[in-house]
């Protein structure tokens, strides 16, 4: 009925291969950081999954706008899929961050802007599912879901900014302006592995969202057959 697109199959294989490659790159190719030791290697996947989470929530909001403009249910599938995958990426970012923070900050958790914002972001998008589960028709689910993801994407940077006005201890990877002191400098090899993980995680994200989207599509087809 809906055959798996061959491009998706290619993306599957590509994701697996590149993920393995980047894993090897991180484990054997990058140097061990001087002060932090091997635990610093968490950083590559940590930042990449945080980036993936952020990206998918923006994608969800864009799909929300797409739905409100066109009223095609496809956009809602995309929105739902992005949120679901984004939640997993966000969770990975938080957990991997904790693994790094325990030896480096000597604590699993601090109420730093990035940590707090990520945690709140997870709660906001968990609430998205609670909202959807209480709505009966697919049309209301899509319509109200779209409004919710758009409003959410506005408040997340606001939350980040408001906590940022307190002091932060989170390392700044890409230094902006004068606060280069807290940024740590990457060697060319580190930078290469870092950019590679960003690219690979983006690919994996696209792959997973696509799969989830297809699931929603199939679900819809079955529901239509039953009714």
């Amino acid at each position, binding site marked *: 009925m809906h055959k798996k697109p061959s491009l998706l199959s290619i993306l599957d294989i590509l994701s697996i291969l590149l993920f393995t490659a980047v894993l090897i790159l991180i484990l054997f190719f990058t140097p061990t950081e001087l002060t932090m030791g091997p635990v610093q290697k968490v950083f590559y996947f940590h930042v990449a999954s945080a980036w993936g989470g952020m990206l998918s929530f923006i994608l969800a909001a864009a799909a929300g706008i797409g739905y409100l403009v066109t009223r095609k249910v496809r956009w809602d599938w995309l929105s739902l899929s992005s949120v679901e995958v984004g939640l997993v990426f966000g969770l990975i970012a938080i957990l991997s961050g904790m693994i790094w923070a325990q030896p480096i900050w000597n604590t699993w958790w601090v109420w730093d802007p990035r940590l707090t914002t990520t945690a709140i972001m997870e709660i906001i998008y968990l609430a998205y599912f609670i909202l959807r589960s209480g709505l009966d028709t697919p049309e209301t689910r899509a319509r109200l879901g779209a*409004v919710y993801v758009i409003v959410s994407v506005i408040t997340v940077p606001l939350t980040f900014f408001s906590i940022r006005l307190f002091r932060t201890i989170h390392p700044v990877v890409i230094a902006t302006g004068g606060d280069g002191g807290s940024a740590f400098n990457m060697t060319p090899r580190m930078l290469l592995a870092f950019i590679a993980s960003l690219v690979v995680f983006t690919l994996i994200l696209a792959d997973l969202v696509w799969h989830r989207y297809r699931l929603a599509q199939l679900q819809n087809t079955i529901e239509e057959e039953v009714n």
Partner: protein
Amino acid sequence: MKPMLHYLRVTWQIFRKDIRVEWRGRQGVPVMLVFALLVVFLFNFALQLSPNLQAGLAAGLLWVALAFASTLGLNRSISLERESSALDGLLLVPVDRSAIYFGKALSNFTFTTLVALVLLPILSLFYQQNMFHLPLVLVILLGVGAYTGLGTLLAALSIQSRTRDVLLPILLYPLALPILIASVEASRGILAGQPLGELQSWIYLLLAADILFSAAGLMFFETILEE
């Protein structure tokens, strides 16, 4: 100019109707007030607060009580319309539905501000410090405005779900976090005697939230109530 005038008149009439219903029934603001006081009592014993409270704690207490109490009013303001299908009548008014939003948001804002104005002298009495500062009242107006602006939008959203009233806090609290942070920080600074200039960024953040959430109401309320 004519349609604009009509729009404003509808907004004003809805606001007036809400005030009148409240004045005759007196079932909203008193309940919110008692609830706010209970929150203060609970926190007092749960956190073992001393009568000579630090500025930060007093500001936090004020805003937590307001945030919780406000939820009651927000839920009520929309469910009241739902009860006797009054909402259908409102939706028949030949005007952009955001006029309903602004009327409702305005009455919610008024009710929560009233609660705040009663709460201030009581807190001053309990914790032996004068909390009546003009700048603090200004911060309350800005903070409550943003909070009820967002809350009215989300109340209209959550009322359509099967979980109804339970859903609103889950949607509202995480999204309202930047408003609460900015309000608490600005209030804390004022109570600690900091000059207003140092608190500028918090006040601007609140102003931005006010504008942002009014705009969200203007854009999305029609979509939320569509049917």
